[in-house]
């Protein structure tokens, strides 16, 4: 027969429901109600369980978190159970905010199969870490006469002083300290040995000055007396990344019914649905199937959200500081094309067309000084990000971050001309999530087009200025380029289109066949040869001059 001890201090109508459920399954229950709880609440609880002979009350102690009073309360509960029902074979310790997550029959089966076993988490702290936050070894080696909750200053000062003067308490003879969850199931054998241990009074006086003894008293003494220990609690408690126990709500019913243990805590006192369902015998007949995955999945997701968050999101709740990460990770990699449109006619439109069916959005020049060329030439895209230049330029980096986040289901590419807009250039170049494709000397074609409208010296001047701007655009951030760059030349696109396309292909999302853009080999514009001649005459030295000549002759000297 399994007996229960319930430690309760608030929301006693919930305790009453739990106790009545256990009693109805044939289990005796001793409830310990904190002596600090009002007489009115206590009387109401008594009235609620009146007439149920399997529910009795233990002698009340005034309990305080972290102190020995909780052990006193537990001991008095266990003694009450044994005094009334000597035939009890195991005692399970529960709190007022626990609920069963498996049928009591299943627990009975388990304990019948392992009658000599104690289920108690009891970790050797000298060997394994258990404490997430706060004192570990020093719970035992220092004196803790002060309340951590009420006398924090004194508590801390006492610890400090004892450390300074190297105070070191030693354990009573024959004991090694063990720590673990407060909630356990112990066999009558082990509990009897603990209660009748001739040294019990000495142990108690030692643990009176241990910090949080409810996590060590029974754990340590069980290790001394138990015949066999399974080192985990039958009460599931799930902790958040900060080490605080999660509280379960009505919508967690399905998750809880797949939980690992036989009981779960903590249940939110207002979770009506959980109390009704989990304390309804019908829920457990027949035994429902169990699936642990939904709970595990929910726990993993909650921890991820809290600690890592969703990559690429900036929001009221997540704003990674530049002090911690220069550029926070983007929602996904993005693709920036510089100069291709000077060589390949309608480059962006054609790439957008190719990309549409394979999850790739190709925008025009997102950061052009005089406009925002959104994919499909729309005025506003997902999230109502608009083509208004003033709004884009207000916080251009966040315009980019928002675009990538809003459309994170698809890859994003856009055209850009480095060297004209310093702030966003720097951002893109130092972003490891950016993949840049650059036609290195595309500025030459810009210069050529400009030379059609001016003439002579002015055209030369303009060309040189463009070249300098281009160089400056990169050299400013040369130390800090973290984006991956695929650098091509005009001549590469014309003389070796296959290879150029393949080089880009490797770095683009799979399925996007960029080679289609080269099917018609690109041509240099008419008059370009003459333009090069003018530059030669003016003494401008160009990289790759020979290959440009080769392009021209490939076109059959059409220029």
């Amino acid at each position, binding site marked *: 027969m399994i007996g229960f001890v319930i430690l309760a201090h608030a929301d006693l109508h919930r305790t009453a429901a739990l106790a009545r459920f256990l009693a109805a399954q044939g289990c005796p229950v001793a409830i310990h109600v904190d002596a600090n709880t009002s007489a009115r609440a206590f009387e109401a609880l008594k009235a609620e369980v009146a007439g149920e002979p399997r529910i009795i009350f233990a002698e009340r102690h005034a309990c305080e978190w972290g102190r020995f009073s909780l052990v006193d309360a537990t001991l008095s509960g266990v003694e009450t159970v044994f005094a009334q029902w000597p035939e009890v074979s195991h005692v399970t310790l529960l709190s007022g905010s626990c609920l069963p997550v498996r049928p009591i029959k299943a627990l009975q089966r388990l304990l019948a199969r392992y009658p000599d076993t104690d289920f108690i988490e009891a970790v050797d702290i000298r060997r394994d870490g258990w404490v997430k936050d706060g004192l570990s070894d020093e719970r035992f080696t220092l004196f803790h006469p002060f309340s951590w909750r009420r006398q924090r200053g004194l508590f801390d000062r006492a610890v400090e002083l004892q450390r300074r003067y190297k105070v070191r308490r030693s354990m009573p003879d024959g004991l090694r300290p063990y720590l673990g969850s407060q909630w356990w199931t112990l066999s009558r054998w082990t509990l009897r040995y603990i209660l009748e241990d001739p040294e019990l009074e000495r142990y108690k006086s030692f643990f009176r000055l241990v910090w949080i003894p409810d996590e060590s008293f029974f754990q340590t003494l069980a290790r001394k007396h138990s015949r066999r220990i399974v080192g985990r609690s039958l009460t599931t408690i799930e902790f958040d990344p900060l080490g605080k126990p999660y509280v379960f709500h009505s919508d967690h019913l399905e998750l809880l019914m797949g939980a690992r243990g036989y009981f779960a805590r903590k249940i939110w006192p207002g979770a009506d649905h959980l109390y009704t369902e989990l304390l309804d015998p019908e829920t457990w007949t027949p035994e429902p199937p169990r699936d642990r995955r939904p709970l595990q999945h929910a726990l993993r997701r909650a921890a991820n959200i809290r600690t890592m968050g969703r990559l690429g999101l900036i*929001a009221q709740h997540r704003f990674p500081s530049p*002090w911690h990460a220069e550029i926070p990770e983007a929602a996904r990699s993005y693709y920036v094309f510089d100069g291709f449109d000077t060589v390949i006619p309608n480059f962006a439109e054609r790439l957008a067309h190719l990309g549409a069916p394979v999850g790739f959005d190709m925008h025009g020049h997102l950061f052009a000084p005089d406009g925002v060329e959104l994919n499909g030439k729309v005025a506003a895209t997902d999230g109502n990000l608009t083509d208004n230049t003033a709004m884009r330029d207000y916080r251009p980096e966040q315009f980019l971050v928002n675009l990538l986040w809003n459309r994170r289901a698809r890859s994003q590419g856009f055209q850009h001309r480095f060297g004209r807009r310093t702030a966003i250039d720097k951002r893109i170049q130092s972003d490891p999530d950016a993949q840049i494709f650059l036609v290195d000397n595309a500025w030459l074609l810009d210069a050529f087009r400009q030379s059609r409208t001016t003439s002579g010296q002015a055209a030369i001047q303009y060309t040189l200025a463009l070249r300098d701007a281009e160089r400056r655009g990169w050299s400013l951030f040369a130390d800090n380029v973290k984006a991956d760059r695929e650098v091509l030349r005009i001549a590469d696109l014309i003389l070796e289109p296959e290879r150029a396309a393949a080089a880009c292909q490797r770095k683009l999302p799979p399925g996007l066949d960029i080679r289609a853009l080269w099917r018609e080999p690109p041509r240099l514009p008419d008059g370009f040869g003459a333009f090069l001649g003018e530059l030669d005459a003016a003494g401008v030295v160009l990289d790759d001059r020979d290959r440009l000549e080769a392009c021209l002759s490939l076109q059959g000297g059409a220029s």
Partner: protein
Amino acid sequence: MGLERAKWLLRARRKGRELTPVVDRTADIKRDALLIFSTVRNEHPRLAYFLKYYRRLGIGHFLFVDNDSDDGTREYLADQADTSVWTTSASYKASTFGVDWLNALKSRHADGHWVLVVDVDEFLVYPHMDVRPLGALTDWLDANSKRAMSAMLLDMYSRDPIEDVEYSPGEDPFATLNYFDAGNYVFAPNYGYDNLWIQGGPRQRVFMASEPEHAPALNKIPLVRWKRGQVFISSTHTILPRGLNRVYDEWGGERTCGVLLHAKFLATFAEKAKEELERGEHYAGSREYKAYQNKLKEASGLWTPASTKYEGWRQLEELGLISTGGWL
């Protein structure tokens, strides 16, 4: 205590003297009750739904400052069983747009309570709200030692032109105001006070597109566990001591937060904008209202094909506008 905070506390005490009690039921406030503090002026049509919405979330008591209403607002509020009402005809602007009055009331009645400070056109949406009352949320914040929660303003609008969006008392305003901007918000840390300055949404997009820097601030910290000595200093955008403004995560993680659905863009808006402009009782010379006046003539609506239809908190969480912050 910082000098600035002391100044605001003194100011609250002084401005508190402008308030005359209409009905004071604060003795009924239970120890753990969640409280709402709000300033109202001629909001009669909105009150029924406002009270209904927040009662359902579990608000225990409403504390109102009535700024000289003449449409029955004061009488309606005083008639409710769970309200306390004060009235004043003093200047809204001179009371820092109501902030001082509410600070004064909070100093007297809010100590130890979770308080929600909202206007009657602001409706809190938070994770799990379909199944968990507000008390579950504040318990979670308590358990995590969080004393304040962010809920930015989310301006809601209809597909129809603003002047066609009629509203009758008691109706859910979001039955018609069911669109919003999902992803055009911009953020800047405000180093002096540690809060985030948020702008964007339809008001920036339509009314302030050519001067986006002047778009109204959307960041709000309306839910706070109140302790005597705390003060809001600018709407609920900023609170002192400034540690309370740290409602976001800087290391990449997410924090639990909600939004305030903003039911501003109803047919009454144009009228209200005109009236407010004449009173001149709003922030920065009522610049916002001037822009509305001008723009409303050209653009009749806020909706675009890229607007998002509202579906509930899960959708906002999916979009990243709010976060469970790891609240299981």
